[in-house]
């Protein structure tokens, strides 16, 4: 028997009888609930007071209204909201909010994002070739990057980052806010795209149902929520493209680029993070969503 098999039986050991009783847990649990409610009440009072003070201060500090003879006065920003609907299913209840580990916190001065955390659910349907195991020709990868450049003229999209032996295709995306990156991996599935997309609705641990759109040719695109990871409060947003021909393409949008990682000296087949990257993702949801249909049309 090897050590992995030994591990699989590690719970079946002789154990001393437990000393914790249900009573003890219930008493401590009720005290905790009471403390949380008291804390929440105090928080509400503090927020109300803060809003009052803030409103007063902002009122006094507000700039003069725009002059009527200068219609272009002030910054010209246009935001395009994502118009895809969310999958019609109830949201998951978060079990808590993101807390970075003390060993790899975000850099000093970068606020901790208190993003809600929900448990991922296992997928029942396995891809016949999992994403990341399907080798894609150089021509297709080049076409993917060209399609990304075409969709994002406002960004600098770099060439392919040299890989570390896996079928992952990474490239940097840069703007004035810094450098992030996109990873594209591909796989195969057998059966209707909708079945796989439904099966994977909660596979990433989203709390809100993902956004979804279906193209005229039957390609189904599903955009999941942003998730924080260690180290350094890494941010990743994932989009799956399920094509009717059984090709599945996974796009991961990340807040770090090639200069923030190096090949892991131990495993040699994965990356080791050395930099925190930028504080936010390099694309908005709408910008990222543009890439789904564009990538789907390649290959």
């Amino acid at each position, binding site marked *: 028997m*090897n*050590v*992995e098999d*030994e*591990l*699989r*039986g*590690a*719970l079946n*050991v*002789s*154990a*001393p009888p*437990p*000393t*914790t009783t*249900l009573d*003890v*847990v*219930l008493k*401590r*649990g*009720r005290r*905790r*609930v009471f403390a*949380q409610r008291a804390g929440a009440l105090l928080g509400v009072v503090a927020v109300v007071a803060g809003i009052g003070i803030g409103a007063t201060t902002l009122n006094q500090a507000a700039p003069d209204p725009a002059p009527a003879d200068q219609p272009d006065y002030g910054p010209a920003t246009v935001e395009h909201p994502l118009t895809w609907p969310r999958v019609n299913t109830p949201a*998951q*209840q*978060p*079990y*808590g909010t*993101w807390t970075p*580990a*003390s*060993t790899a916190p975000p850099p000093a001065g970068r606020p901790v994002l208190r993003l809600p*955390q929900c*448990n*991922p*659910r*296992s997928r029942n349907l396995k891809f016949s070739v999992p994403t990341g195991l399907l080798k894609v020709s150089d021509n297709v990868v080049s076409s993917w990057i060209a399609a990304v450049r075409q969709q994002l003229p406002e960004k600098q999209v770099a060439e392919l980052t040299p890989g570390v032996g896996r079928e992952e295709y990474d490239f940097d995306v840069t703007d004035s806010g810094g450098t992030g990156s996109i990873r594209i991996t591909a796989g195969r599935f057998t059966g209707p795209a909708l079945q796989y997309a439904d099966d994977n609705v909660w*596979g990433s*641990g989203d709390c809100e149902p993902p956004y979804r759109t279906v193209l005229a040719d039957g390609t189904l695109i599903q955009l999941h929520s942003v998730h*924080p*990871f*260690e*180290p350094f409060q*890494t941010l*990743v947003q994932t989009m799956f493209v399920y094509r009717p021909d059984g090709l599945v393409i996974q796009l991961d949008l990340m807040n770090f680029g090639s200069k923030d990682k190096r090949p*892991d000296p*131990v*495993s040699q087949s*994965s*990356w*080791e993070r050395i930099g925190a990257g930028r504080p936010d993702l390099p694309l908005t949801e709408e910008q990222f969503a543009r890439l789904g249909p564009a990538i789907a049309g390649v290959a």
Partner: protein
Amino acid sequence: MGDTGVRRDEEFSEFFTSRFDWARRTAYALCGDWSEAEELAQNAFVKAYAKWPSIRRETAEGYVRTIVTRLFLDSRRRGRERERPVADLPEHGVGGGFSDPDARLHAALRQVAPKQRAALVLRFVHDLSIEQTAAELGCSVGNVKSQTARGLATLREAYGEPVNSERDR
């Protein structure tokens, strides 16, 4: 306490009765000390009680396992080193006087760094996928792979097994 409170306590009691020992054994696999395992499992159930109305019954087990794992890692990050890694494996059980026939495995596990140990326990003891392990540990898939590979190498060395077993899946 109203009807809601009574129902909450009833459901939670049923869950506690069926899963406390499981949580305690999971904690023991992580920390290798029954008294600390008891404390970790108890704290996890206290937290679960406070969140019980928002926990779905089918995910409650995973919720408690995540808390146990994170409490264990937090305790190690804070430097609460109850365990004392030893250069050589003891020839007899180390379960605080309790006769533990699996002492060799657990003693070998204690040679593995806490985060790597957590990855091994989730991957092999609980048979979670790499993605599920990453979600429970709050880290990337790549990080889980490297932690698992390193943890297995250390464990095999401590266990005295030649390096010929399966690679990370």
